């Protein structure tokens, strides 16, 4: 395989992995808090659409990004308050938000097509010159480089800060955490807000930096691939990154290999994330520990 081929493959992987990784970082925090957030699809779609809308209204793609982040945050706000302030069933809210945002964005984009906007690629001076890796990782749109800051920061926030400790406690044993004064539902809501903002960023990245356009059902289920990545990664940051890389690579292979003259079973590649997550849970059961209170709502006063 020539260096050019390798560059193409690595660029493809970088492009498919980036939105996944933004959202997965957020979902990692949210799931460690004990919330199984299935409305990532909604958050990413909101980020993608409102990112493009912001770019159109504001005139530049860079203005779209904060609007996309905010849109993801709004979706998370609705989800968090229904699920962890009002004690509604979080899966109802998540699934409904998914359908609602899908319908809403399709509705808006059918009524009014958005003009294409794309953030140009910027090449990092020295690192961009490394043979295969350089052009693929260090020659991307500038929001891509945010990943290098966001991922370690999220890890540090969850594993090394006081807030993160309370969030993790809310996910492992909310009753005990509540007894020591941790506001469990508040931490869960905050974790969801962070997830929403990051997923919105991931969605905005997808529309503004990669495709340059918003099309109907743009995310096409990658919200659930993100959930599979966090599960596959055993609810650790390193595992989540690995999961995103793997699943991004699978997606990229499906797109890139045919152009290079080889072909793979399309459906198998699409099912790979879910099969891998299931396989990891089955065969690595001892080392894969979900947060003990994952997907269990908490009400003070109820055991």
């Amino acid at each position, binding site marked *: 395989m020539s260096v050019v081929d390798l560059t193409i493959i690595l660029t493809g992987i970088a492009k498919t992995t980036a939105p996944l990784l933004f959202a997965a970082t957020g979902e990692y925090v949210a799931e460690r808090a004990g919330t199984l957030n299935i409305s990532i699809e909604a958050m990413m779609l909101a980020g993608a659409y409102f990112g493009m809308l912001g770019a159109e209204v504001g005139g530049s793609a860079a203005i779209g990004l904060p609007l996309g982040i905010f849109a993801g945050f709004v979706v998370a706000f609705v989800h968090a308050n229904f699920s962890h302030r009002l004690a509604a069933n979080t899966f109802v809210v998540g699934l409904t938000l998914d359908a609602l945002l899908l319908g809403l964005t*399709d509705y808006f984009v059918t009524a009014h097509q958005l003009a294409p906007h794309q953030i140009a690629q910027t090449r990092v001076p020295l690192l961009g010159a490394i043979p295969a890796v350089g052009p693929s990782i260090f020659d991307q749109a500038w929001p891509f480089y945010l990943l290098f800051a966001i991922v370690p920061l999220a890890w540090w926030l969850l594993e090394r800060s006081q807030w993160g400790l309370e969030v993790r406690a809310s996910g492992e044993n909310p009753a005990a955490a509540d007894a020591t004064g941790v506001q469990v539902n508040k931490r869960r809501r905050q974790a969801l807000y962070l997830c929403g903002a990051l997923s919105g960023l991931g969605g905005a990245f997808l529309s503004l930096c990669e495709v340059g356009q918003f099309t109907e059902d743009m995310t096409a289920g990658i919200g659930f691939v993100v959930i599979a990545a966090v599960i596959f990664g055993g609810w650790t940051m390193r595992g989540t990154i690995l999961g995103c890389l793997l699943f991004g690579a699978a997606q990229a292979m499906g797109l890139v290999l045919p152009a290079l003259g080889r072909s793979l079973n399309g459906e198998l590649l699409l099912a790979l994330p879910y099969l891998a997550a299931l396989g990891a849970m089955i065969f690595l059961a001892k080392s894969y520990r979900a947060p003990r209170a994952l997907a269990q709502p908490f009400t003070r006063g109820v055991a």
Partner: protein
Amino acid sequence: MSAVVTRLRGLLAAPPGEVEQSRAAAVGQLVLLYVLAIIVALLVTGALVEIVGGSLASVFSAIYTGSIGTFGAVGQTLDSAVPVLIVALGSLITVRAGMFNIGQTGQLLMGASVATLVALHLHGPGPLVLLATLAASVAGGAIWAGIGALLRLWRNIDVVISTLLLNYVAIQALGYAVSTQSILQEPTPPGGQAGGLPQSALIPASVRLPHPGQYPNFGVGLGLPIAVALVALFAVLLSRSPWGLRLRMVGANPVASRRFGVRVGLIAAGALILSGALAGFAGGVLLTGSVYRIQPGFDNNFGNDGLLCALVVRDQPWALLPVSFFFGMIRTGGSFLLSTGVPFYLAQVLEGLLVLAAVFPPVYLERREWARRLRAARALVLKAAA
């Protein structure tokens, strides 16, 4: 305006600390909240319609005409409500058992796939093959849900996660099956281009559910009475049979149930498999009742709609009937939106807003009641300490 708001506030006000609300007042507040929530949902929909430049009146008239405006429309709506109803029944059963099955889509697809295999390859008298097809759909859905149950019992994997992931595996498996000649794809006609469409052949006419339509434009499939009979059956079983009681016990307190001698693992797994069986059966009814062939996207979101229907209803099997009819109304009414110039995705938005509106009132009142009880208990403790 402010007088109206003050009056509403008074009506919705929580009763003071130690006084329990009278039942009539509680029901009244619930109904009022429902009405308010639905009004808000409709207002938001109206705003969306205005943004696009349509008129809310024409939108609602289109939805009305499309869903219940004519006899034929009512028949269509009933036909659309049947799969939702069957899936919702299964979901209600698992919710009673305290567990959550999100895998209806996958179970529906698997049930329908197995049913298609049987319908296309089994030879015999029509009605018998039809029965075998429906039985196969039940089996297919049950087995797919059984995988989730197995993972729970064997590796302690949460049912939510496994069924969620299995959904997407099922979708891709179906996509593969209908693109491969040897499995489900319809054979290319001789002289036709190779590659063919990713869909199965039509199931033979003798294997289709009859439509006993008496009136000229009111042809409802046999699926409807079957579905209603199932609801009646399970309503009785859930409320009056020992199995129903055990199910409720397991859902309410698995630890205590185990102490009482109830086989929690078996009951829970059984509930999951049963709900998968029902979802698969819904797929079989869809296949033999209206679609007649299987292709990607066959589930048409019926799995999710059934789940949401069950979660909106929360507990009463009989309430599934009107709510599923309502979901059917949105489907058939939504298809008429194309004539108004408003993008037809509005139906999906309206459905989402209405589900949120339906979820909000009971949850809000529960929360408020819980907070009130905590306050009352705390006040009691402080009074005793003083």
